[in-house]
């Protein structure tokens, strides 16, 4: 039983990484200057949102099984407070920190309609921090000695970095350029 929990925890961890990467990639697609338009945008946005909730389901199982199984000492506190775990303090802590940031991202998205756009945006940008944290956490702890799992995690990293570069390296948008040009004028 304990052994199977350990395997479930590792499997859901890798699944969470894959889903998180997919969510990040979709997020980069819908937020960048080359974002899709019309129906396409609606579909991509919907998948981005629902996939993030699916990812949370896997993540909850990953965390719960990691606490319950007794191979390594991770308790409820160290699942919430970073760098308190007895086992691999730094690398487990990195995962915990990613979860905490994720909670903030999820909460602000859930109450997005009640928040100033800027507040939501700033918190949402932190997804670009939590994703590499989760990736390193997975790479060092769970998948380092299993080739298929290691390959999956590395592939996630490559795809994610590619999507972020695709977003950053877009040409300046004429809308943004015009806004900035007008803002340069005398307005006070």
């Amino acid at each position: 039983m304990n052994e199977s929990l350990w395997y479930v925890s590792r499997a859901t961890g890798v699944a969470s990484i894959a889903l998180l990467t997919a969510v990040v990639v979709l997020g980069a697609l819908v937020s960048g200057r080359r974002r899709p338009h019309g129906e396409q945008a609606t579909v991509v946005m919907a998948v981005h949102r629902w996939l993030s909730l699916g990812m949370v389901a896997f993540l909850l199982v990953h965390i719960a099984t990691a606490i319950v199984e007794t191979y390594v000492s991770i308790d409820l506190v160290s699942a919430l407070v970073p760098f308190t775990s007895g086992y691999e303090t730094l690398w487990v802590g990195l995962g915990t920190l990613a979860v905490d940031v994720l909670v903030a991202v999820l909460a602000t998205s859930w109450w997005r309609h009640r928040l100033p756009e800027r507040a939501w945006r700033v918190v949402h940008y932190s997804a670009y921090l939590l994703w590499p944290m989760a990736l390193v956490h997975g790479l060092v702890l769970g998948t380092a000695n299993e080739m298929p799992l290691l390959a999956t995690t590395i592939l996630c990293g490559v795809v994610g970095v590619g999507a972020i570069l695709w977003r950053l390296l877009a040409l300046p948008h004429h809308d943004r350029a015009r806004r900035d040009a007008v803002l340069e004028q005398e307005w006070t």
Partner: protein
Amino acid sequence: MTVDTPEDLVGLLDAAGLTGRGGAAFSTAAKVRAAHGNGAHLVVNACDGEIGAVKDGYVVEHHLDELVHGARLVSGGGRRRRQVRFAAHRGSLTAHALGRAGLDVLEVPDRYVSSEETSLISLANGGLARPMTKRRPFVMGGTDQAGRRVPATVVLNAETVWRIAQVVERGPAWFRSFGTAREPGPRLVALTGAVARPGVLDTEAGVPMGDLLDAARPDPGWEHVVVGGLGGVLLTADDARSTTWSTAALARHGGAVGPGVIDVLDPSRCPLDVVTSFLTYAAGETAGQCGPCMFGVPSVAEAWRRLVETPSTRELEAVRAAAGLLPNRGACRFPDGVGRFAASALEVLHPHLAAHASGPCPTERSGHRVHRA
């Protein structure tokens, strides 16, 4: 008339039927009631922001005491006295006059959209003088785009505030002895352009527009007039002479009394070029926030320039289509006004465009000295 309580003031304004003289013609009683209810700060708009407008400056120059009294009446209501500021374009004579009188002057950049109600509220609260989205009226307080709190503020046009003082002093019956039942009260109108006697007239709704024009002695050859500036409409001399000065009558031409500007176009200048310069100015005045303002207004100007260059049905339809896309989409009504102006120019200058398409400009043919700007 005695005004002991805020309710007295609102009651008087209601009885008088005073509406905003800045252009939107909204009930002043309703605004003052909301201002008292919310303890709103007051901004008196003396910017004369519309092209050709000078009447706010006229009020400051000739009726400053009553203006200040009116502002006190509005701001004095409620539990405590609220801040009163007088907005005028930086460096203008009006700003200097207000400053000399020791009033709190809100210096506004000389931009078309900067004297818009929400632009002034933004500027008064340390923001940029650009329009804000009205999720609800700012007289109730609200938030700007960045989510910062904006205190309850009411903006009233300078003439409106002067009229408030007049209504309190002379009573609603006196006020209603001017104008029409639907548009009661005296109102100022600025006459400008190709006239021998430019200036401000204290008139009323319902008088023949021909009388107002004749009082200013227009150029004998005048053919077109712009009523209400960039947010108004173009009229032919015949239409102008056969209508009365009221929103009810001007509505037939898509116009309104608006901010009270009658601009007689110089008959020696091709009216197409005049419209081009109006629209080119409009394109440069975008606030850079909403699509219809940022891209729509410049594309109307561009379509118009192409039409003037090569008059054709296709180019004409392009202007009509571009102008038709502007209304009801921006944070403020600037694109709506430009769309209305462009549509009326198309309508009124159709014969002139047709003449351009088939030969030289009729303005040049008529032997007038032609100077292009």
